[in-house]
């Protein structure tokens, strides 16, 4: 366990030393700050919209962290841990930590602002279930985004233009998926491969409270997609090696 924490701390520090985090997190802060500049807002709806944005931002983070570690030091780490799988799982956990930081930004800004304006930020008083529900929805979307960003890894698709283009294509489809299926029902046979981010988010866009049953289904569905993408990436990298 200590070894796993050490690898995560190492990657976190490596990431913070680089400038790769600046742009996506600045964009996220700018979005959240401007989105919550008008009050009052619906709690569930605002978290649902933010989770779509966080999905896109974390995809960006996933793409940029692929080449965080120089190849040689990555090889040294893999040998040191005696397992490629262990190394890649640590990297996934590191991305999960970044997702949590993204959630702190996405939820922290409105919650702090809500305190500062004496609870008038939202259309009603915020409750613990709203925070838990919001966290779960944001985490599922953020983690799915991060796994998607790493799916077309630089060692799997060497041509970066194709890899980034393919990632962008999937992100767009994930965001418009529910609308697309609504307008062209036959498209569901094609877009099932794309993470159902917009579908899950749309379940919460009109409700005034989180439906915990729907939330559990949505969370499980998105995490399933994220885990499948993570497994595909890890196994491809293990197969391909360096």
């Amino acid at each position, binding site marked *: 366990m*200590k*070894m796993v924490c*050490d*690898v995560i*701390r*190492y990657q976190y*520090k*490596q990431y913070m*030393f*680089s400038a790769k985090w600046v742009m996506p997190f600045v964009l996220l802060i700018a979005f959240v700050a401007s989105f919550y500049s008008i009050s009052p807002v619906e709690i569930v709806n605002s978290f649902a919209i933010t989770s779509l944005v966080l999905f896109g931002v974390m995809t960006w983070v996933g793409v940029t962290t692929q080449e965080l570690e*120089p*190849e*040689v*030091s990555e*090889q*040294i*780490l*893999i*040998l*040191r*841990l*005696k397992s490629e799988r262990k190394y890649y799982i640590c990297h996934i956990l590191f991305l999960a930590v970044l997702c949590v930081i993204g959630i702190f930004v996405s939820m922290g800004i409105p919650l702090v602002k809500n305190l500062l304006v004496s609870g008038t930020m939202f259309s009603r008083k915020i409750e613990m279930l709203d925070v838990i529900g919001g966290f779960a929805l944001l985490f599922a979307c953020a983690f799915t985004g991060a796994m998607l960003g790493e799916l077309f890894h630089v060692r799997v698709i060497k041509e970066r233009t194709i890899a980034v283009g393919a990632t962008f294509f999937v992100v767009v489809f994930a965001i418009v998926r529910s609308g697309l299926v609504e307008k062209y029902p036959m498209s569901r046979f094609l877009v099932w491969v794309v993470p159902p981010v917009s579908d899950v988010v749309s379940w919460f866009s009109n409700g005034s409270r989180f439906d915990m049953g729907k939330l559990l289904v949505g969370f499980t569905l998105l995490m399933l997609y994220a885990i499948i993408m993570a497994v595909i990436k890890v196994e491809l990298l293990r*197969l*391909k*090696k*360096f």
Partner: protein
Amino acid sequence: MITLNNVVKKYNQKVVLNDISFAIEPGQSIAFTGHNGCGKSTLLKVVAGLIQPTSGKVEYEQPFLFHYVPEHFPKMNFTAEEYLLFQGGMDGLTEGMVKEQIDCLSEDFFFENMLHTKMKHLSKGSLQKVGVIQALLKEPDVLLLDEPLSGQDVASQQVFIDKMNALRQNGVTILMSCHEPYLIDAITDWTYRFENGKLTAVKNEKSLEEKWFVLFFEKGLGAVVPEKCKGHLQFVEGGCKLRCSERYSNEIIVEMLNAGWNLRGMWNEDGV
């Protein structure tokens, strides 16, 4: 033991490793020589499982701890000390143990004053020292050295040789890609030259000055490998081969006979 069976590695139809088969015994120290780009580094990485062979297999008797000293250590944003602290932690050492090791090794390699410098500002030789120190924080089962001395000062080179010989005495297997004959002489038992993707056993430079022999022993009932010979034996069908210089040959033969082995052949390196 690590066994390579008919390993082939191709890059864009260029054959870098061509049907390589050999076994690496625990404690052996082997050097691979050859022109730049001939496949030495590739072989080291294939042995460590970092590169997938195009065909053939690498088999491990057990999961080994490999440590790797690359030819070009990357410039990073960490200070050398920060980087080494993380690496020691990942080796499973406590913070106290890592700090003690870093102090000790950085003093040995004349590197104390550089510990707090960011790695991106270090020279090639200093970065190479970071590469060596990280590999020595914890004793590995197998140490891979890819041109380990490139850019290092003479005094550090001697320290490096002493450290490697200490590791050999502890039974660490050393696999090295190298051009320097004196280093090959100082720390290896066997040398293989790469030519057209094939490996050929060659004489060490030392053999030009003194006579070297290959001894063949057949395993007797209850035979064990004597402490002095550990890591120097090459196991072959029916027994083992051992390469030694003329001046140690009598001593080694006595050791092996006492340990239950039967001497079945002795040749000089020309096969006579």
